[in-house]
C-alpha cells in the first residue's frame, strides 16, 4: 500500500477529514477513541511514576520562543501567529484585496504568540521560575497540539498534531535512567499492540549546513533515539516515539538549577499520538471493531 492509498483509505472511510491543506485534517470519533485508548495505555505504563500533569494551549509566548533558540535550529518549521491591527482604511484595503484575490496578508502583524513546536517548550521557563529543583528532581506529563510547517501527502507528517511527553529534570544520572526505562517501556508497549518496531539512533531536522553538523553531533553522542513503525512503507518506517537527552541545553538556557546551584539536565520521551493511531489503522484496517482481539483487549481492556 502506498502513502497515497493509505490517506485515500483514511479519507474514504471517514477516519480523517480532508481540509484541502496537506497535513491539516479533521479526526473522526473512531480516530479520537484510538487516541484516547492509547493515551490510557501510556498512563498504565507511566502513571505510577508520580508525574505532575501540566497543560499548555498550543501556543507559546513569542519572547520565550525567541529565547528558546528554535529559530537557530528549525526556522523552516516554525509557525508564528499574525493578526490584523490596522485602522478603517487598512480594513477597506484588506477587503478589496480579498475581493480581488490578491495577497491580503501584508498588513498582518506578529502577535505575542507562536505556535508550540514541541509540547515541552513552554515547560522549561515555568520550571525555572519555580526555583531550585528538589533533590529528587522533577517529572512532568504534558500533552499539546504542536505545529510544524512541513506540508506532506504522508498522513504521518501532519502540520498540526498531538504530542504527549514525559519530561524528566534533574541530575545526569536521574535523567539518563529515566530515558533508559522509557526505551524499554516504549518497546514493551508497542509490542503489546502487536506492531513491528525498530529502535534507532536519530537526529532532529536541523536546518542548513550548520544543521548538518548539529545533526551529526546529536547522532555521534547518542542523544536521540526513535522507535520506528512501518506505516507509509517498510523502507522508511515512521518515528512514533522519541527518546531525547538534552544534556544541559534547556537547563542552562533557562537557568534551571538544583539546590547546590548545579545546572539541571533534562530528557523527554515523546509520543506521536496521531502516528501511533495511524500505525494501528494501517496494520489492522479502518474498522476498529474488526481489529485483532488481542489488540482490542490491550486498548479497550
Amino acid at each position: 500500500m502506498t502513502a497515497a492509498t493509505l490517506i485515500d483509505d483514511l479519507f474514504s472511510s471517514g477516519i480523517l477529514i480532508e481540509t484541502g491543506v496537506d497535513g491539516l485534517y479533521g479526526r473522526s470519533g473512531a480516530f479520537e477513541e484510538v487516541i484516547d485508548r492509547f493515551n490510557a495505555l501510556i498512563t498504565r505504563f507511566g502513571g505510577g511514576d508520580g508525574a505532575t500533569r501540566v497543560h499548555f494551549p498550543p501556543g507559546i509566548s513569542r519572547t520565550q520562543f525567541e529565547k528558546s533558540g528554535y529559530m537557530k535550529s528549525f526556522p523552516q518549521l516554525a509557525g508564528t501567529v499574525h493578526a490584523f491591527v490596522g485602522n478603517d482604511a487598512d480594513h477597506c484595503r484588506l477587503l478589496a484585496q480579498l475581493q480581488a484575490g490578491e495577497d491580503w496578508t501584508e498588513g498582518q502583524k506578529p502577535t505575542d504568540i507562536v505556535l508550540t513546536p514541541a509540547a515541552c517548550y513552554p515547560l522549561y521557563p515555568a520550571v525555572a521560575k519555580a526555583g531550585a529543583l528538589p533533590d529528587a528532581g522533577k517529572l512532568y506529563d504534558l500533552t499539546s497540539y504542536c505545529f510544524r510547517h512541513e506540508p506532506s501527502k504522508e498522513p504521518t507528517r501532519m502540520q498540526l498534531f498531538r504530542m504527549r511527553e514525559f519530561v524528566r529534570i534533574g541530575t545526569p544520572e536521574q535523567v539518563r535512567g529515566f530515558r533508559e526505562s522509557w526505551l524499554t517501556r516504549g518497546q514493551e508497549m508497542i509490542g503489546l499492540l502487536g506492531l513491528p518496531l525498530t529502535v534507532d539512533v536519530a537526529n532532529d531536522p536541523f536546518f542548513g549546513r550548520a544543521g548538518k553538523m548539529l545533526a551529526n553531533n546529536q547522532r555521534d553522542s547518542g542523544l536521540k533515539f526513535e522507535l520506528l513503525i512501518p506505516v507509509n512503507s517498510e523502507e522508511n518506517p515512521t518515528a512514533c516515539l522519541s527518546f531525547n537527552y538534552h544534556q544541559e541545553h534547556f537547563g542552562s538556557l533557562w537557568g534551571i538549577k538544583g539546590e547546590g546551584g548545579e545546572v539541571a539536565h533534562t530528557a523527554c520521551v515523546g509520543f506521536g499520538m496521531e502516528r501511533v493511531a495511524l500505525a494501528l489503522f494501517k496494520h489492522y484496517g479502518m474498522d476498529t471493531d474488526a481489529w485483532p482481539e488481542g489488540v482490542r483487549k490491550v486498548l479497550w481492556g
Partner: protein
Amino acid sequence: MQDRIREIFARNSFLPVAESTLGAEDDLYKAGLTSFASVQLMLALEEAFDIEFPERMLNRRSFASIAAIAACVGELTSTTV
C-alpha cells in the same frame, strides 16, 4: 596553523576556559564546547581560512581538539591552494 586556530579561539568565546590552558590534543567538548559553539567555531574557521568544510567533516571528531581542527583545515587548505 595551530597558532592561527588558537587566535580564533582567543577572539571568540566558544569555551568557558581560556584556550591557552588547553593542549593540542585536549578534548574541547570536555572543556565545555557546546554543539552550538562548535557550529560557530566551524563558521569562524571557514571565514578565517577561506575554506568550506565538506559534509564528511561536519561531525564531532573534526572539532574535538585543536590538533584535529588543524588536521582538517590543513587538508582543506592544501587541496584548495
